[in-house]
């Protein structure tokens, strides 16, 4: 092995790396937020009484889960521009990630909804709550709290998957890495640095999600026990 490691060359690009990491984080958090909303909506559609809506949600979920994210990103990016909408890479990336993570979130939240015992629903019905009120107060909060660990993992995976958006030139961390390694020819060092950066960002994501859980779930904050 006559390869000498030189980390100083890629590290000199640290402002770019930082900008790329920031883009990754904002991309991930934006996608997380909207993906969560979409996921909850689809889970409700799937478990609701409107059959065509449930079936539509079912088809959407199966299609997304059985096709690669890379191809979905291409379809969204090129599809939007062929419809005449000029969107930047960041927006297209967000839309694609939202569509993707929405499907996975939906399945997880659906499992949470189905884990609520029927007796709770009966009790709520008997106090005269409407269906929407039941969903909002009796079904969704405990369902989401119960599946929050699975949902969190999904969003950390999303952050890692955001690297795929480098393929449509969104300037997130992997795209920056690709650029740096072609400038410096220090490929191994560049990607090792970036790997460490992703590990660090996973911790940041987990921290943010933990804080969200503490704020959103007062029972967990006060009792400290799982639901």
């Amino acid at each position: 092995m006559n390869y000498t490691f030189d980390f100083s060359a890629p590290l000199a690009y640290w402002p770019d790396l930082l900008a790329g990491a920031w883009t990754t984080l904002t991309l991930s958090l934006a996608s997380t937020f909207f993906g969560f909303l979409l996921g909850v909506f689809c889970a409700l559609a799937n478990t609701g009484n409107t059959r065509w809506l449930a079936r539509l949600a079912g088809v959407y979920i199966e299609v997304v889960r059985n096709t690669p994210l890379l191809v979905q990103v291409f379809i969204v990016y090129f599809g939007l521009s062929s419809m005449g909408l000029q969107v930047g890479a960041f927006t297209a990336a967000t839309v694609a990630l939202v569509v993707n993570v929405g499907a996975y979130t939906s399945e997880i939240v659906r499992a949470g909804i189905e884990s609520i015992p029927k007796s709770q629903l009966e009790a709520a019905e008997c106090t005269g709550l409407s269906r929407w009120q039941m969903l909002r107060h009796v079904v969704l909060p405990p369902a989401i709290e119960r599946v929050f660990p699975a949902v969190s993992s999904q969003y950390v995976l999303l952050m890692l998957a955001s690297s795929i958006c480098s393929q449509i030139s969104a300037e997130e961390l992997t795209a920056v890495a690709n650029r740096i390694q072609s400038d410096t020819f220090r490929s191994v060092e560049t990607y090792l640095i970036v790997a460490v950066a992703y590990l660090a960002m996973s911790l940041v994501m987990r921290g943010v999600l933990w804080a969200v859980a503490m704020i959103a779930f007062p029972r967990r904050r006060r009792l400290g026990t799982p639901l």
Partner: protein
Amino acid sequence: MGFLNAAHFQFLFNGLLWTVGLSLLAFAGGGLLGFAVALGSSYGPRWSRMAVSVYIKLIQGTPLLVLLPLAYFGLPSLGLNVAPLTAAALALSIYVSAYLGEIWRGCIESVPRTQAEAAECLALRWHQRVWNVILPQAVKIATPPTVGFMVQIVKNTSLASAIGFVELARAGQIINNSTFEPFVIFLIVAAMYFALCYPLSVLSRRLERSFHVAHR
């Protein structure tokens, strides 16, 4: 769709075959390594359990789009010149081994401890217990999630396009570069992936259902 002729479809179909081939390579390599990971974690001494835990966390915490170029550029730095296929197969195998290793470890550990105890009390040695009593039961438990994970493997092969390996996604990109109808082309590519993945997903769900029925 008049811009696409038979040659284009042939090219896409070739890409599909390479996708299947790379998936099988990744499953074989990742499966072998994953099996070692699972055993090292369930039955190894403390240091091997910790090493496996670190390995899994590292690999699972790194995007595949970073692992792939690390393999592609890293191997030449060790003096080995590799084709994109080899680098992709290696990177995917390592990626798969971390996930399959964790799945299989969970399955080994969910075989009731009393089974191991009963086998031990019949004077079976460690390797006889693992081979004849624990593993057959662990394999049954592991089949549904393993088939489910194969869907992930097929989807992840699409990323090998980033290091220049011509599988289905890259085939689509190449055709797009000459016909400039990306929306239609990638819809077709998506449909081809769906044709590969959906049957596996259905099979995995069916296996899981029958497994739970049998174990009630």
